[in-house]
């Protein structure tokens, strides 16, 4: 084989590079729809593989003798039972709505859209997104919020006909306006991509301590207020710096999410929708 690239190879590389640039220049909405549509045929297999791997992961525990309660196994059982309870509640709620034609409201201004199962995660190690099995057909729209038992999970960024993608709090592109539940100190939470987040724009004189709970502030016009976001892992103010360095962990661990509830929040007119907390 020739060592140098031939004319055909160079032409092929040029065409592929141009195609890549064109794809990269697509608007985010178009790129998202393209992604969801192209991956639609494999989603049933992703759902199947996810269920199979969840069952396989729990197999060693079921096969080994029971030496006593294992905390990790108990946590997984809690997640599994919570998922089952949520599915039963969703079925009950749908039946109640059909009978009474009422809309169940979780929070003033919040509308429940759908309960969705997680069918796949992100193929890249540096992004934190999940694919759900609900899309436009179930009424899901880009911008809908994913929650789970009063805790924030993420936000819908791409929607396809029968599936959607949510961006988790730990994704590098995620931004949430939060406040401390104890002291009401406000800040912006940025995802860091390694299961951790950083809270910024908190003045050095504000009081935020380790183990403080962080909740959504509702001032960004994106996420409804008073949803649990995470807890503070550490906070320090270095001499000469105007803001505190605060590390936080999300309340819902991304690896344990098996189902989410999608909601839509209509922000009141007085919030600042164009503020610094608006996502990219």
């Amino acid at each position, binding site marked *: 084989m020739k060592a140098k690239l031939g004319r055909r190879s160079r032409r092929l590389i040029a065409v592929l590079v141009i195609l890549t640039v064109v794809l*990269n220049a697509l608007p985010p909405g178009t790129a998202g729809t393209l992604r969801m549509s192209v*991956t639609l*045929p494999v989603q049933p297999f992703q759902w199947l593989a*996810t269920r199979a791997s969840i069952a396989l992961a729990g197999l060693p525990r079921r096969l080994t003798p029971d030496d006593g309660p294992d905390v990790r196994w108990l946590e997984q059982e809690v997640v599994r039972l919570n998922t089952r309870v949520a599915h039963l509640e969703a079925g009950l709620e749908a039946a109640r709505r059909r009978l009474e034609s009422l809309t169940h409201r979780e929070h003033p201004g919040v509308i429940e859209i759908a309960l969705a199962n997680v*069918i796949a995660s992100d193929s890249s*190690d540096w992004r934190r997104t999940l694919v759900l099995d609900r899309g436009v057909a179930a009424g899901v729209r880009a911008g809908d919020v994913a929650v789970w038992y009063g805790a924030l999970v993420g936000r819908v960024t791409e929607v396809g006909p029968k599936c959607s993608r949510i961006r988790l709090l730990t994704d590098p592109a995620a931004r949430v306006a939060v406040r401390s539940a104890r002291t009401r100190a406000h800040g912006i939470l940025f995802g860091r991509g390694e299961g951790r987040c950083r809270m910024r724009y908190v003045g050095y004189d504000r009081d935020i301590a380790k183990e403080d709970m962080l909740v959504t502030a509702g001032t960004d016009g994106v996420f409804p207020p008073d949803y649990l976001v995470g807890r503070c892992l550490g906070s320090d103010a270095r001499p000469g710096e105007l803001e505190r360095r605060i590390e936080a962990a999300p309340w819902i661990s991304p690896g344990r999410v098996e189902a989410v509830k999608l909601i839509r929040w209509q922000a009141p007119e007085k919030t600042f929708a164009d503020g610094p907390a608006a996502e990219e």
Partner: protein
Amino acid sequence: MKRYWLMLIFSVALCGVAATTVADRFRVAGTRPDIFFAVAVCFAVFARRERALLAAWLLGLGKDLFSGGPLGAHALVFLAAITVIVAVRSYAYINVAPILFVLAGLAALGCECVCVLVTFAKHPHFALFPALGRLPLEAAFTALLVVVTCAVISWCRRWSRRRVRVRLS
């Protein structure tokens, strides 16, 4: 050619399902091998030059389609890495386990380094050093997957040739 396209599309779909479901759930030390890149390197070892480049681009695009990152980022990076591997293939016989392991490991390390740096450049709050710290282990897993997959493919090819010879004789 038609069979080649079918094989490519099937590879992308299979890698997508495996990478987003099974590989994510069964991580080792918090890392998982880059299945898309491993398959791209296998194409680089066995396929002709143009087909290997096309396969690399398609597999990179497949990884972007199954991810929430920018579209086309991995496609470009995979194309560059496989171009290098194909050039090295002209000088040395790379289908030897130790050489293939080192080459695939270095290529995977380079690809992921570029992706991490691009992510950090776009999102300054990204945890750069923990991510860079995980890269060598991830590259080693990917290289191991490449060696095993190439060994299986080589064995399958030898077995099918032996069957053809037996039928002809």
